[in-house]
């Protein structure tokens, strides 16, 4: 089977395959242009007659559970990134598959982290054929060097839900690592030694996978309340000594930045929102996990306190700073997709105004609306932006694939999308003539805030009008690019071969761009 075939030019002007790992794919047609047909895919019917009446689905170990679930060559196995860099489950699954000699598996994680680096050896020996999801760090480098057997597919969190729901990806076995579970398979992430908050990324897997295995290190008698995952979807439960490393579950990137340059970006971003009238009593915002985004929350707090206003809700990425805003009454609700520290976990467990969400409620584009388009202010990062405001989050200017998309693409549908990014990192300019990889079309990106000036997308005439007399340094994106190149010099472009190694999907499942093999 060829990795890909039948290249065409899509509506973003990028050359993309229309056959991916043997299956047909639709090229990107423009934002909101592709309309799906038919019905959602349906999971297999099951019968209570085949499950223990006493509700006890516990299996002695993971190997036995995987074999019972039908582990065999060529199937798709899914995992989740609720434990971030502290995950101890994904690698065990493939250790077992390798030990048993299975080949050509597809790994379908909701995100990958440095702790998954050891899987490169299984990509090399053919245990794993390819990854659809995200390829971070070493896995990204491996992909960029053309070493992965199948074609990598990058999807957003919402796109992952959409792909399963639409039948693009069929999950044979889902393994859901759960901080607390009961023998029936009900599970949550708010209790237990590996508590991580919500389990929303695993929702689609529980609903659609052929077989679902819940793995926990904190088994409680039925009922496990709250049940973020329903045992009614679950086939087997496995108890392990340890499923995650708590201190790595709590991500280290969630402290407010101390970098003066980044604080300046945060200060200007918040000031921009205020001057443009984006902050009002009852507004909403998306809170990111990066240090700059966290600092913006602190500036938002100051503004809200001064005016006696409240945000109606914040979408996040919760952590102690957002929880503080909730507890101080500056935010009425947190709609939480993933939780970055123990204050976030505690708040979600104890505070009814701090509720968990899933990619279905927040991000799924093939649904009857989702939360992301209702958010007033969205603060995001990017590795590169181009003069047409297209942005990249997966590859760097040197051409290497290093990051996943996460919820980034999905949140672009917010009412005002702001990217606070340094104009150059060391000597690497961030604004290019053309991004290496398009992850977000420029029509959805409104404002770029850099330490040397702020560029507003010319499409946003309303914002340009409002900021006409601003004290902030408003410039064109062309001016900012010229300023960076005056300081750094004009960068050369990375050299690629014409071999596609991965594709970037848009939120509707169409193919937005191709990632090419690095020329060595």
């Amino acid at each position, binding site marked *: 089977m060829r990795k890909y075939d039948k290249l065409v030019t899509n509506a973003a002007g990028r050359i993309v395959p229309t056959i991916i790992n043997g299956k047909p794919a639709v090229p990107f047609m423009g934002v909101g242009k592709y309309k799906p047909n038919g019905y959602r895919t349906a999971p297999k019917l099951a019968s209570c007659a085949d499950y223990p009446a006493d509700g006890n689905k516990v299996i002695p170990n993971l190997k036995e559970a995987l074999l019972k679930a039908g582990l065999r060559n060529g199937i798709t196995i899914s995992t989740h990134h609720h434990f971030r860099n502290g995950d101890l489950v994904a690698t065990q699954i493939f250790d077992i598959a390798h030990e048993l000699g299975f080949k050509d598996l597809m790994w379908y994680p909701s995100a990958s982290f440095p702790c998954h680096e050891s899987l490169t050896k299984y990509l090399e020996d053919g245990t794993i054929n390819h990854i659809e999801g995200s390829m971070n760090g070493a896995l990204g480098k491996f992909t960029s060097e053309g070493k992965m057997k199948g074609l990598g597919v990058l999807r957003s969190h919402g796109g992952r839900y959409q792909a399963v729901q639409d039948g693009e990806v069929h999950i044979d076995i889902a393994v859901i690592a759960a901080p607390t579970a009961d023998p029936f398979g009900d599970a949550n992430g708010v209790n237990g030694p590996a508590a991580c908050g919500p389990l929303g990324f695993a929702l689609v897997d529980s609903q659609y996978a052929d077989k679902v295995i819940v793995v926990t290190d904190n088994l409680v008698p039925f009922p496990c309340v709250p049940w973020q995952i329903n045992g009614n979807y679950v086939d087997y439960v496995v108890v392990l000594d340890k499923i995650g490393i708590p201190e790595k579950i709590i991500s280290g990137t969630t402290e407010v930045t101390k970098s003066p340059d980044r604080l300046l970006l945060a200060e200007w971003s918040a000031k921009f929102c205020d001057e443009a009238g984006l902050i009002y009593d009852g507004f909403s915002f998306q809170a990111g996990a990066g240090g700059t985004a966290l600092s913006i929350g602190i500036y938002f707090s100051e503004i809200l306190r001064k005016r006696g206003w409240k945000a109606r809700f914040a979408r996040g990425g919760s952590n102690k700073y957002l929880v503080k805003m909730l507890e101080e009454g500056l935010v009425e609700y947190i709609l939480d997709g993933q939780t970055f520290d123990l204050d976030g976990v505690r708040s979600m467990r104890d505070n009814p105004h701090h509720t968990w969400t899933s990619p279905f409620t927040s991000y799924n584009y093939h649904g009857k609306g989702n939360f992301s388009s209702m958010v007033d202010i969205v603060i995001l990062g990017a590795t590169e932006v181009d003069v047409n405001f297209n942005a990249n989050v997966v590859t760097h*200017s040197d051409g290497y694939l290093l990051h996943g998309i996460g919820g980034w693409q999905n949140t672009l549908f917010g009412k005002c999308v702001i990217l606070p990014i340094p104009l150059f990192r*060391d000597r*690497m300019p961030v604004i290019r003539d053309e991004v290496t990889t398009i992850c977000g079309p420029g029509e959805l990106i409104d404002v770029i805030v850099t*330490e040397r000036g702020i560029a507003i997308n010319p499409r946003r005439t309303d914002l340009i009008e409002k900021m006409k007399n601003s004290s902030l340094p408003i410039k064109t994106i062309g001016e900012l690019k010229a300023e960076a190149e005056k300081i750094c*010099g004009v*960068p050369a472009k990375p050299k690629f071969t014409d071999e596609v190694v991965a594709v970037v999907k848009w939120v509707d499942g169409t193919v937005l761009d191709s990632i090419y093999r690095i020329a060595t």
Partner: protein
Amino acid sequence: MENISTAGNKGKGVRSDCFITLELTKRGGIQLQVESKVAVMYGDDIRKNALEILDFFGIKNASIKIEDSGALTLVIAARIEAAIKKLMKTDQDYLFPVIDENLYKTTRDCNRFSRLYLPGNSPSLMINAGIHNPDGIILDLEDAVAPDKKDEARFLVRNALCGIDFYGAERMVRINQGQRGLDDLDYVIPYNVNLILLPKCERPEQILAVNKKITDIRHPASSIRHPVWIMPIIESALGVINAFAIAGSADNVVALAIGLEDYTADLGTRRTVEGSESFFARSMVVNAARAAGIQPIDSVFSDVGDMEGLRQNVLRSKALGFDGMGCIHPRQIVVIHETFAPTPEEIEKAKKIVFAFHKAQEKGLGVVALGTKMIDPPVVKRALNTINLAQKMNKLAENWRETYEEI
């Protein structure tokens, strides 16, 4: 001389810098090795520049390794030049033109609320210093540079003065003490430095020596003729005692600063938060500067995490009569500006007085009165200063008098 030299920095945490290892060889041409985190984007550019510099110095045979962590061209050039000059004597300098943005001059009495110290051998801190809008930046060749890095820092500071845009901040250099300090001037005076900070100043003769050296350097018709101001730093008991003589020693001395770490060490005491041990010295510096008609400038506040402590410190400093202070972190700048700036109450009061002053002038009256109260000329002068400052800091419109309503 040795035939292998190194220059620059590398390792964990080093950014926007590079490390050069240079060996002059007898034959074999130029062997160039570049390891760079930006190799894809700038590898060819780095190679081209390196070869050009070696050629400029007439080097035909050498082995050179560049370990680059994203350094700008002018940084790499400074490092290569430093490595070369450790191995050979030459009168040649590899210079960048002074960019148009850096050709400005500063005035004797310009605002000097904040001046941001930048270690002279750390390029990463220089590049974005200007965006934080300090009144001045100090490229420090003295205490912020390790003794064995002092030679190479000169090339970096020189190139920074030429090519880094500090967005209008007064471009200052702190030179070393003694003869090394006088030699430092060769690397900064021709490149439109605006002000020289002279450390450990104890006698007027030190100022005169600096001025003589400046005149010597400038003699062969330099194209840049802007004034070079001097800010002596008083850091010892002797300096405090001679403060007035130092302040009035030359026309281009525009400010007198105090450095408290060295001063308290000289006294044999310790620096405290309330600062009673330095009260005399600070007052002396303020009085000496005022008597000489120049700006008194306070020492730095070294706890960069304590913004409230900084604010209190600035309030004390302002109350003592200082016009500004040093800072060692960009986030201190805004606190210093906000606190030194005239308060709304001060501005309101000054407006009343200045308005009355103009009215008296229009009527040809020699005496300014507010209601039945006579206003002394020094009070008017201070009010004019406050208004002037408020306007400079965008806290008051230039044409405020047009809409001012007398109460």
